């Protein structure tokens, strides 16, 4: 009977393999009922304090777990379409818990769904108001001048814009995860957001706030078989508690996607996607021209090799364009989300980040 308890592919005989499958089938029935009747696992459980909230913006401080931390605090900027608990999914799947354990002082800029009065928010509001406001609050709270910014996806774009427009400080380092720079490399620019057919003005003028579902559907379109294949894999793995737990956390995070302020969305489509102005030049934020060469702080860009949302070709020009003397690009196996929160992230990305950041946070 021992063979029936071995992992997949370990059973020595066809009979043993069959026994394993029968056992799994029974477990699927039992656990399938549990799945339907139980709430999803808790996410984002690392202790934190809300330092500031203003409309769509929330700033949190995480409770340090080391008695001695690095001098420079770390401010994480989440992508504007999603909640920041992807950094803190579960106990052994939390980038934040890992970094706290490695001695970092961590603050997170998280987003709430923008309200009707915030539909006029523009990139300027994020780059010249929200980020500087939070940096000021982090400086006051931590009692230090310098801050490291870490942006994920669109949070990386906003952080990069801030760094380019504030070359005189107080930034110490800039870390980006899967940050799109060459928007012409995104399949959206040729497909659903094709300039010839996509009437972004009509859409924004009509809805004001871009619904989260619309953005998620556009993302799903890139992998139309992903959802049904995911359901089949869930059924196949219902016997496996760890798989089910992880699946539920990820699905919940996907469902918790956020709508976007219409004006901000209009700017992203017209300026970043159609004009590709972040890379090719011409992007102005509140009258100030953005030049990536003005990013001079130490820069680390971590890219996911199998990212379909922000393909490596879309992300790679950042390091080349930045004016930093100390800059590094790391390409790791993984997808857009699994790079940060997948089971392999703790072995690949997190130690690489710690290795780079530790030496620059003193």
């Amino acid at each position, binding site marked *: 009977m021992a063979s029936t308890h071995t992992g997949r592919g370990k059973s020595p005989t066809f009979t043993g393999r069959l026994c394993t499958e029968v056992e799994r089938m029974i477990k699927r029935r039992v656990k399938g009922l549990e799945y339907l009747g139980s709430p999803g696992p808790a996410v984002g459980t690392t202790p934190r304090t809300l330092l500031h909230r203003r409309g769509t913006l929330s700033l949190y401080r995480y409770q340090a777990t080391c*008695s001695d931390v690095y001098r420079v605090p770390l401010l994480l900027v989440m992508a504007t379409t999603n909640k920041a608990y992807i950094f803190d999914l579960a106990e052994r799947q939390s980038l934040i818990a890992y970094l706290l354990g490695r001695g970092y002082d961590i603050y997170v800029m998280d987003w709430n769904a923008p309200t009707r009065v915030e539909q006029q928010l523009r990139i300027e509001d994020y780059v010249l108001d929200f980020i500087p406001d939070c940096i000021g609050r982090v400086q006051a*709270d931590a009692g230090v001048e310098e801050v490291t910014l870490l942006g994920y996806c669109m949070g990386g774009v906003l952080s990069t814009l801030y760094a380019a427009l504030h070359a005189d400080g107080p930034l110490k380092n800039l870390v980006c995860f899967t940050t799109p720079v060459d928007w012409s490399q995104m399949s959206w620019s040729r497909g659903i957001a094709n300039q010839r057919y*996509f009437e972004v003005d009509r859409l924004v003028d009509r809805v004001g706030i871009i619904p989260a579902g619309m953005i998620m559907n556009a993302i799903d379109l890139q992998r139309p*078989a992903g959802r049904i*294949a995911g359901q089949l894999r869930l059924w196949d793995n219902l016997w496996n508690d760890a798989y089910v737990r992880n699946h539920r956390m990820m699905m919940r995070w996907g469902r918790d996607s956020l709508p976007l302020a219409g004006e901000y969305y209009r700017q992203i489509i017209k300026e970043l996607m159609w004009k590709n102005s972040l890379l090719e030049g011409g992007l102005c934020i509140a009258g100030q021209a953005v030049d990536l060469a003005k990013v001079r702080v130490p820069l680390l860009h971590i890219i996911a090799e199998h990212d379909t949302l922000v*393909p490596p070709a879309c992300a790679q020009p950042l390091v080349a364009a930045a004016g930093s003397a100390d800059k590094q690009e790391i*390409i790791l196996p993984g997808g857009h989300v699994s790079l940060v929160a997948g089971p392999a992230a703790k072995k690949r990305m997190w130690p690489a980040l710690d290795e780079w950041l530790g030496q620059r946070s003193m």
Partner: protein
Amino acid sequence: MGMFDPFQIWRETLTLIEGEINSLASRKMETAEFAQAANQFNKVSLGMQHVLERSLASVLRRLELPSRTEVDALACAVQRIEDKLDQLTPAPVKPSHALRPTRTRRPPPNVAKAATKPVKRTRKPVTPPAAQEE
């Protein structure tokens, strides 16, 4: 030679089919025809949504009930008042720095030789986005 395992074959086939469908869809999505069709669909669905919202608003008005937009606007107003109150409320006394951790940490000396070996590549050609975990 590996043992014949129909279950494993089924799993591999699923991954293969998923990858094929996704890569086919990616190619189709980049065509002008798809862009045109998708935007036509969006235009029609937006128009229908608009008509539906107006009709519902008219019904709710007759029933003297607030529409979702009005409830949202009310929620926004309450949120704005809460935000203003937060700004007016004096900030809590900053906790003593004695209770906070010290800021003298340095990376362990062997950090540079850490066991992590990230794949560091630059200017790598784009991998076709087939069957990749997102």
